[in-house]
């Protein structure tokens, strides 16, 4: 099977995973270990769309962004997670997370191509916010290292799904698909931002 024909299968599996998570939303998942950690990034639509948007944008920007972002993001997110886990306050986390969806969605929808350092700085800032949220929301029970493994892996897989979709931008139909995806992310981000600001 060629690499291209494998991509739709991978995409379908990843999307199915998201649908499956809808059945458990609102309740505890797992015992504070790997499963709980895997579930956390996909438990919130604001987290999910931002992670996918990082992959989409990286694919649009091409090398080296396409691999720099998934290498750097988990590390910077972990720093934010460390801060959150240790109770260090960070103002405006929820607003910032919502803004990340809006900004990243806009970048993908408009196929913005800033200098690499600007893209990295932006993604790093959002990674700190997302990580901080994961760190403060971790359960008081369970196995910390397995929880950490779960949500880092889930985050990485969301990036990968974004990259796989984003790679289709090389074709005319794919370019439209990716930018439409960016628009969807932007809409979700805007919704959550308005909610965070108390306007909805």
């Amino acid at each position, binding site marked *: 099977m060629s690499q291209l024909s494998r991509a739709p299968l991978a995409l379908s599996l990843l999307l199915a995973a998201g649908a499956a998570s809808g059945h458990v939303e609102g309740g505890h998942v797992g015992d504070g270990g790997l499963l709980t950690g895997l579930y956390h990034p996909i438990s919130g639509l604001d987290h999910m769309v931002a992670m996918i948007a990082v992959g989409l944008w990286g694919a649009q920007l091409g090398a080296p962004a396409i691999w720099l972002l998934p290498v750097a993001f988990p590390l910077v997110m972990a720093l934010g997670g460390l801060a959150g*886990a240790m109770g260090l306050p960070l103002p405006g986390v929820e607003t910032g997370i919502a803004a990340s969806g809006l900004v990243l969605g806009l970048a993908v929808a408009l196929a913005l191509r800033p200098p690499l350092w600007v893209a990295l700085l932006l993604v790093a800032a959002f990674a700190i916010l997302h990580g901080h949220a994961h760190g403060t929301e971790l359960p008081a029970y369970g196995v910390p290292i397995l929880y950490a493994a779960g949500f880092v892996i889930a985050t990485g897989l969301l990036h990968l799904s974004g990259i796989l979709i984003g790679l289709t931008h090389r074709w005319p139909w794919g370019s439209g698909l990716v930018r439409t995806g960016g628009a969807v992310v932007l809409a979700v981000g805007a919704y959550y931002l308005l909610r965070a600001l108390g306007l909805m």
Partner: protein
Amino acid sequence: MSRRTPAALVTAVAAPVAAAQVTAAHPLGLAEGMAQVILRPEHLGVILALGLLAALRGPDAAMRMQVATPIGLAVGAFGGAVALGVAGAEVAGLGVTVLLGLLAALALRLPLVLYPLLALVAGVVHGHAAALGQGGALFAVGLAAGGALGFGLIAWPGLELRAEWQRIALRVLGSWIAAIHLIALGLTLRGA
């Protein structure tokens, strides 16, 4: 992927089965020591990180680390077995793994002499943490053997991954290992 890789994978799967058959005939410490690398995620993480480092640096580094890793584990485990309790062994272990994961993510070409030193230090720290308060000499031997096997199963097949996207995947794994252990470090310090 070479023909060695499937054989290595079969060996890895067969190892736990073999360990179950060993416990009846040998002291419990040996099998428990070997199983640490599989059963304890923090020790699995350091072996993965060492293997990734070796795979990214090349066969010369891999050979040196293949020798240094079990030596470090054995030395550390012997120290832990005689209860030379060093405060913060768990924290040190997590910190070492963060560093190794970070080095793998950056794929820096360090001087060759540093690689076995890193493996030795990581082995001592993790061997000590694994054996502290439990296990004896056979546990230490088992831990060293398990670590050597685990390292080999990661490093040598990893050396065969030469395509650019494969090398990047190894670096991504390194960043994941660093990230996971960084968070775990924070949770441990918090007392979670």
